[in-house]
């Protein structure tokens, strides 16, 4: 065998990956056009494209560019950061059940935001909100990784995640419990359900800087995740600064999830599901899963947000409720598949 034989097989796998990624990107664009077209006034994808680039009637331009575009952009970015966060946590912990929502990060971020609102420190459009959400998310992921230690098994991670998300939930409930203002309680409750309705460019400006910063931090570590496939000690012997990598992932996830939760509330399970959908297509290399997982996250959240507008119901279904209703059975399916590893942890 020659050197060409080594590189040739690599190129074939690379072509398949690039193909899958391109198809995903096209799907995301299509879903964006559909998302922009759906609402009280239905517009075809073609009319949407026209309105986006300054064509068509003035009314359709206002509808698409000012009313629906912020919502669609938020679904795109938040889906992407959730998928990327899930893939990064799975890469860091070398564990297919790792994800922000199972670790209580969105729930903690929501607590941070709720606390700021309840204390009257900020209204829902101030930067104090994402900052509080990010700090709370950072603390939750940091505590979880500190409890888990260097080589945590599945069971410890899931149990610590359960404890942290329960605690964040209880703390949020306490804030609502102690709050004397019923309108405030209602606002917090609706917001905790997770929704993209009626979001403006102000919300986009609030969330995007943090989401983009978090995404860049996570993406910059893609090669380190690959080396980490061999365990922390070997990765370190290959020149990976494992301590720095952990800090990058915690910070990236906190920035992304905190920024997202601050404008939409908790939207769960996209981070868990996205990497799993990609492994059969892309392979298990944790470095290569990041971008496809982000695209899948976008596609999932865009699709869910389209679905809540199409499903006929007396009251609006919140997108966070829908992702959890679909995500939790998927989680159960994963537990069944990983039953052996989990059972081994108990014994």
């Amino acid at each position, binding site marked *: *065998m*020659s*050197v060409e034989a*080594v*590189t040739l*097989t*690599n*190129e074939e*796998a*690379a072509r398949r990956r690039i193909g899958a990624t391109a198809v995903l990107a096209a799907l995301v664009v299509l879903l964006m056009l559909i998302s922009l077209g759906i609402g009280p006034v239905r517009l075809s994808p073609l009319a949407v494209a026209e309105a986006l680039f300054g064509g068509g009637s003035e009314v359709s331009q206002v509808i698409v560019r000012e009313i629906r575009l912020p919502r669609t952009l938020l679904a795109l970015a938040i889906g992407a950061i959730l998928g990327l966060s899930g893939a990064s946590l799975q890469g860091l912990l*070398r564990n297919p059940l790792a994800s922000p929502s199972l670790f209580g990060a969105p729930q903690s971020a929501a607590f941070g935001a709720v606390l700021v609102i309840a204390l009257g420190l900020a209204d829902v459009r101030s930067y104090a909100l994402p900052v509080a959400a990010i700090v709370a998310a950072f603390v939750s992921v940091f505590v979880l990784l500190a409890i888990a230690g260097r080589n945590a098994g599945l069971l410890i991670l899931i149990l610590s995640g359960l404890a942290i998300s329960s605690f964040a939930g209880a703390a949020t409930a306490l804030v609502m419990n102690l709050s004397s203002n019923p309108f405030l309680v209602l606002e917090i409750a609706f917001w905790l359900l997770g929704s993209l309705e009626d979001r403006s460019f102000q919300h986009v400006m609030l969330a995007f800087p943090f989401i983009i910063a978090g995404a860049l931090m996570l993406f910059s570590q893609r*090669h380190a995740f*690959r*080396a*980490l*496939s*061999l*365990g922390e*000690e*070997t990765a*370190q*012997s*290959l*020149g*990976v*600064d494992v301590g720095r990598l952990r800090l990058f992932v915690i910070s990236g996830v906190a920035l992304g999830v905190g920024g997202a939760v601050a404008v939409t509330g908790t939207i769960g399970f996209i981070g868990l599901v996205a990497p799993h959908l990609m492994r059969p297509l892309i*392979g*298990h*290399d*944790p*470095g*290569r899963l990041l971008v496809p997982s982000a695209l899948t996250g976008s596609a999932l959240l865009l699709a869910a947000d389209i679905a809540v507008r199409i499903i006929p119901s007396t009251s609006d279904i919140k997108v966070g409720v829908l992702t959890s209703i679909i995500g939790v059975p998927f989680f159960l399916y994963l537990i069944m598949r990983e039953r052996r590893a989990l059972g081994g942890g108990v014994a």
Partner: protein
Amino acid sequence: MSEAALLTARGLGVRLAGRVVLKDVSLALSPGHLVALVGPNGAGKTTLLRALAGLIPSEGEITVGGDALASLPLRERAKRFGYLPQGHLVHWPLPARDIVALGRYPHGATDPARLSPKDAEAVLRAMQAVDVMEFSDRRVTELSGGERSRVALARALAVEAPIILADEPTASLDPRHQIDVMKNLRATADKGVLVIVVTHDLGLAARFADHVLVLKEGNLVSWGTPSEGLSERVMADVFRISAYRAEYQREAVIVPWADI
């Protein structure tokens, strides 16, 4: 060990969680040697290996090729040691070739899909050296224990570092694969690499190593050629056993025989 030393340690000590695991170890090892690091369970063998590679904090002074280890950045250290830990763990079902290619990570080849010709040649050399080309495309998680240990060894060889540190590379392998791995390490040493192998198999150590280092309770208590380093007195004091000793095909044979 009279030639210029490649790896030296002076007054090396390690504490883990307040407990002294290694104390005052000094050594000087030269290129082209296979060194066996032996000792009872808990003697500090793995700790010494980790400390030498700079993977855990230690007291004392370590030099590699004349440079103080502490002064070398992480990436530079990584180029000087091929580190093969116990267990040959791989967390994701990646193809064997991608695992071996990770050996080029310290050289900047962080993506196995985009290897430079130089890196691809190094990967190929390593895979051919331990004969794993045939399962290049197979997932490591689907390989047998013996096959996986060879892939892990190829990964450490692909670094093409002047020093290889292998922690129990023969553990849980059948006799044929044990000999196979030791032959590969011997051949690597013969190419001018310093190979340090932790092992419990005194027979393999006696047969393949140029030198043995014997650890007991964190102290370096004996060293030298296998027959000197593993003398009857050392076997009794350190391992608390007697051994059958002989020579076969002009190589030392030591077979642990009875507890004393």
